[in-house]
């Protein structure tokens, strides 16, 4: 069903066909609608036309193929050239984003638009709607970090939102990662009370689920940022992995951090080797080669 060739608005345009070459590989069976819309779009792009009808045809193509980066980039250029109402564009994007979860172009486009609008009203709320569908969506988290930085939203409810997400799922590593960004992402020293709070958050999370890697990695990151030794966490780790009472070991990650703590303390290398041996033989044997490599490093250094 031709839409463009019969439309008087397009009668001045000679559609530009696609050249796929002779006997091309991986040729796609397009619908007539797609072939036609693309032919008209190529024609106006060739003239570098930026007009209302360009917006119409780009919207049409994007609806059929939202991963078409060329069309998105050309649309952005046209929107800016025409000085269009970008808030309206945002509504179009909301709809697209909710229907297409894994898409680089939608989020890059949104970033270009929002940078021009220069007002973040409603944006974090929209990312929350996205996270309700997939709370680990990489593009959306990346966008949210851009928002925080661009609009200085560091103290506008980020930590509170992360707390909510971690309450829903303490294993949501994307939320942990965002937490690290919010707490340590600014170019300033983090005060001691905040560092203490973060260590406490990890302890609480580990208490709920000791075999959850996220808080164990997070606390290592916190200690490193705060220039504190790993042994700061020795007591907690020992609680979840008492080496002298192996039946009570409840976390392979506790064994992992203990091995590092003991290896750092010269006189307790034997205990580090015991922890690594537990990991290789019983608690995480798929990674035996790695645990044995760590043990080898300790032996070589003594």
């Amino acid at each position, binding site marked *: 069903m031709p839409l463009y060739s019969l439309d008087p608005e397009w009668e001045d345009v000679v559609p530009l066909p696609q050249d796929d070459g002779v006997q091309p590989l991986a040729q796609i069976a397009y619908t007539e609608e797609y072939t036609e819309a693309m032919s008209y779009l190529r024609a106006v792009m060739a003239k570098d036309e930026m007009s209302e009808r360009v917006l119409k045809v780009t919207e049409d193509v994007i609806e059929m193929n939202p991963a078409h980066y060329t069309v998105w980039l050309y649309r952005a250029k046209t929107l800016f050239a025409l000085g269009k109402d970008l808030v309206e564009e945002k509504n179009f994007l909301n709809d697209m984003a909710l229907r297409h979860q894994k898409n680089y172009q939608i989020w890059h486009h949104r970033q270009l638009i929002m940078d021009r609008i220069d007002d973040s009203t409603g944006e974090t709320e929209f990312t929350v709607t996205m996270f309700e569908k997939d709370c680990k969506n990489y593009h959306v988290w990346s966008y949210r970090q851009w928002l925080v930085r661009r609009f200085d939203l560091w103290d506008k409810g980020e930590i509170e939102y992360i707390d909510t997400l971690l309450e829903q799922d303490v294993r949501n590593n994307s939320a942990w*990662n965002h937490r690290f960004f919010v707490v340590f992402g600014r170019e300033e020293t983090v005060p001691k009370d905040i560092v203490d709070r973060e260590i406490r958050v990890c302890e609480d999370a580990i208490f709920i689920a000791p075999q959850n890697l996220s808080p164990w990695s997070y606390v290592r990151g916190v200690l490193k940022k705060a220039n504190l030794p790993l042994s700061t966490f020795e007591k907690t780790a020992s609680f979840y992995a008492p080496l002298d009472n192996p039946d009570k070991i409840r976390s392979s990650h506790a064994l992992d951090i203990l091995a590092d703590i003991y290896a750092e303390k010269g006189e307790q290398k034997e205990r580090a080797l015991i922890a690594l041996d537990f990991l290789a033989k019983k608690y995480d044997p798929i990674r035996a080669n790695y645990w044995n490599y760590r043990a080898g490093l300790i032996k070589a250094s003594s």
Partner: protein
Amino acid sequence: MPLAPPLFTTLPFLHDAHVTPSSRDQDATASSCVRFLSYPEDPFPVLDRAAHIAFLESGLNGDKTGKLPEYMVALDASRPWIIYWCLCGLASLGIDVRRRYRSRVVASIRPLQNSTGGFGGGNGQLSHMTATYSAILALVIVSGPPPDGTDNSEDDDEDPLDIINRLTLLRYLHSVKMDTGAFRVALSGEADVRGVYCALTIITLLRLPTTNGLLAGTREYLGRCQTYEGGFGAMPGGNEAHGGYAFCALAALCMLGEPREVLSDTLDLKTLVSWLSARQYAPEGGLSGRTNKLVDGCYSTWVGGCWALVEAALNGPQKEVPLGPAGELRPENKGVVGSLWSREGLARYILTCCQAMRGGLRDKPGKGPDFYHTCYVLLGLSGTQHYFYYVTHPAAAPSSVTSADSFSTAPEAEDLPLTSAFLWRVSPSIPSVVKGVFEPVVEDLPAWPDDVADVGVEGDRLRAQHPLFNVPFECVDVVQAWVGEKVGF
């Protein structure tokens, strides 16, 4: 066939009682994998080579109409990718793609090149770094002199790579280069480590000059992508560590210099190795892309592929010694780390959980196959079957120490062509934990035929791929020979 060991058939020893959406997904995946992994009749099924070949050929040739089905319009901006995935997968399975597809690859890629430099995802589309990367790799895979028995005659004198306009391509690369050290994926497009990896692959393979600051700040940019977890985000400043971006960043760094020097100077290697190791799960045996996310067959390449690079960084450059009377070389086994991951675990996951019934490979049980997964699952399986190591540069021998004088007149180090990527070697043997002893990675099989379609080949064995470029290993030598004859552009 012995049953699979309990490691792959029983749920982990430690298991928290607290249930969340993540643990529910993880438990469901582990249980469904265990069903496949412990299937008593066939605990380690053979690679269904013929079915996978047929699946990938359908990606190149389409269905009965000669085209790919309508719904694949979603990949209309990724056509060079489809060609690359299918060619690369077929080559790994032992198909002589150069003989079969050389002229059609050239014909398909040629209309994607833009006069302003680079390649688009389709004819008339703007140039894009990932489209340029996959288009060039597709050409690389079929590069070299025309094989005997091909029916094309008109462009026999032309190497497939000759269609690339290196001068406009270089200008394009400069136009997407940013002051931060990153490369955008397109003009006005987003900038992330994919852009950097694609740029470095192109620069290295085509030996483009890096003068005028083409790589200024790039190494530091890659270093800033490492996160507190040890892996890499898509860009610096807070993105979550992710397997795909980790491969891009590490492979890119390994093109900038000798792996040990570059990786240990730029990164926290210890945390990286820890994060990488934590990507492998039991009982699945497969690899995940992020902490507390599920295994996915495609990470067999993205995460699995990081191991060779990281191991080379831990070992430093190796000297080579003869392996046997045939004169094959292998690295000296002096205190090298061997394999830090479970090759068996990954091979089991791929063969039991990733093979779709009617051909093609997939993310995990319950998912359908596609060309992307088929390519990267096969490359990952190939990675489990080969040992990669990095050799000492011949010019870097102690006798040829550069004097201070000659150093001062030498060109700036960062302006020299990138050559480190060409010092990788592959061996069918792997250093054992016993010093000086080498073990075959897989049971010895007869030599490869030119084309498995003609004679067939038994077993799961796949051809080796280059650890940085993900193309058949020997293709890289062919490109080097081609580029060596170029004077200027």
